[in-house]
């Protein structure tokens, strides 16, 4: 854990993961980027729109027998809705994401190594979404995706816009950052999301899990529940 003073307001900004480069100051919402020895502010994030999510930074959970902590969050919007991407740090240092959308929870980890060529090609087809707001005809959901040993099917393609962030993140996520996000599902609940921010493509692979399976702790109180 490394602690810095926020260059904007002087409050403590903590980096709990050594790999986190970006963090949002909890006090003044400045997005802070960590250089080798220091931090600098790269702008102020908007306050995140509220929701009824029971999760918060610092919530703990379990996946495959290993504990994790939620250290960051992206609030994403698309034409027809909003969702949360919680950034998590596993006890062994791996970092992943919990997608919280429409009451479903997915957990995924970035696929290591180069993306399969057809996935790259698909993302290129979808690239048009980023610029013109319309994807190429080839980029209709329904196609199959082979990622590692799992076969999945693309079920939706969205233009996702970052509405804000908090905590620690592996990349800068300013408000308005746009990506193409392709969600894929498998027969046994496998989950993957492919995304492209205009410069780089990433694939995250994991699965859908029920609320109880995460054994969450340190949850945010919810009035009436």
């Amino acid at each position: 854990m490394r602690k810095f003073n926020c260059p904007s307001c002087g409050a403590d900004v903590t980096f709990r993961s050594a790999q986190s480069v970006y963090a949002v100051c909890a006090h003044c919402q400045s997005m802070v980027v960590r250089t080798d020895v220091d931090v600098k502010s790269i702008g102020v994030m908007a306050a995140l729109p509220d929701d009824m999510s029971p999760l918060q930074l610092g919530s703990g959970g379990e996946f495959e027998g290993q504990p994790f902590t939620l250290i960051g969050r992206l609030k994403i919007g698309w034409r027809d809705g909003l969702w949360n991407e919680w950034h998590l740090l596993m006890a062994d240092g791996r970092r992943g994401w919990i997608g919280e959308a429409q009451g479903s929870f997915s957990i995924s980890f970035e696929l290591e190594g180069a993306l399969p060529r057809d996935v790259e090609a698909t993302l290129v087809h979808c690239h048009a979404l980023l610029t013109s707001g319309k994807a190429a005809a080839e980029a209709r959901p329904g196609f199959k995706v082979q990622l590692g040993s799992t076969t999945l099917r693309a079920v939706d393609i969205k233009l996702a816009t970052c509405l804000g962030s908090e905590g620690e993140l592996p990349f800068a996520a300013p408000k308005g950052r746009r990506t193409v996000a392709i969600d894929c599902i498998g027969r046994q609940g496998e989950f993957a999301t492919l995304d492209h921010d205009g410069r780089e493509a990433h694939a995250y692979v994991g699965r859908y899990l029920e609320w109880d399976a995460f054994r969450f702790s340190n949850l945010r109180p919810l009035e009436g529940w």
Partner: protein
Amino acid sequence: MGDQPSILPSAEPPPPRTPGRPRTFACPNCGGPVTLRAVGQSITATCSQCSSVIDVADENLRIVEAAHSAMQDAEIPIGARARLKDIEWEVVGYMRRSDGPGDFRWTEYLLFNPYHGYRFLAEEYDHWTLVKMLNRDVPSAGSEGWIDANGRSYQFFGKGFARTTYVAGEFFWRASTSDVTAVTDYIAPPYRLMVEKNDEEIIVSEGEYLDARVVAAAFKLPLPIPSSFSAGVSQVNPHKQSLAVIAAAVAVATLVQIVSLAMSANALVSLQTYDLTAANKGKTLASKAFRLDKEGNIEIETISYLTNNWLELDMELVNTDTNRAFPVFQALEHYSGYDSDGSWEEGANSTSSLLPPVPPGTYQLLLEPDAGVFSKPSSPAQRVIISVRHGVPVWSNYLIAMALLLVVPAFGLLRRSMFEKSRWEKGGVAE
């Protein structure tokens, strides 16, 4: 520490979020209070006062559809809570939906729990189904055969369109009364698989049939209970084939019958031949006395070969010890001949009567005959042979019992197939 990753939540806990709570705002159309329960997930909400549909995806609260129709009350009000399948749910919205032609209508309630997400509670003609989105790829979804999904084998049930005719409350998609989706249904009672397809996505959901009484108790509402003649689409057929019970009853009855056959004496206690003439008319004839050592039933069989004639015997079986009489009346007739259709025959040359068990004792059979031949004094004597049997095995009770026992499974089968007929009337492919 240094560059080692660490999880130390207690060392520097991030500031806790403020508690989550429903959000209230003023309706941009009428100013009435609108409560948003699934904050951050709901995209549209309707005002409970003016029923305008409001876009709540961002702060601007745009009116999507102003006061689109008169408020319609649902059986379960928005905000009601119930524990179903061990999870507490709150009703946050409901939709009225119908098939393409509008012949078949149903209601879908949207249930919300901030931890467990969403469920749909569908009500069609008082039958209830709790539905969950699957988040599973079902490759053959939409085909018309058997398909496998979520570890179950599903039978194709029907295909058609679902049109949303009314919305109230909040939804995590842009619910509107112009929504039309193609729906394919599969069943594996009590489970049901629904595949909804529109231009943009395929949503596969799995439902489980719920007893209306369970739903009523969970919501503490007096919901109507469906008639036992109307089947829910994925309701388990309640008319079980109770063949085991019937088979046991048949076995017991057969055993009883075998034992009673083995125990019946079936003894010929009297056999007497009478040659009856006009002289016997109005007279009483008596058989030889015979002894019955134990209680038992009596069968009296009379044989007489009649040629186009009739015979009536007014009989009494009399216990000569007690003078108790058991009356028996027998009538015989037999006619035959030829006509344009060939030979014909009517009646019979023998008859028998069964008397219920009589007590032991000495008996005589008294008879007073009358016959067609008695009207002609010149007619030859009519021979009549009367035999009396004691302790006769009886099949009729057994046969009646068998018939009744078979009625039960036959009726059950009928009810079962009527139930299936009622179920499948709702299925099929809509053009």
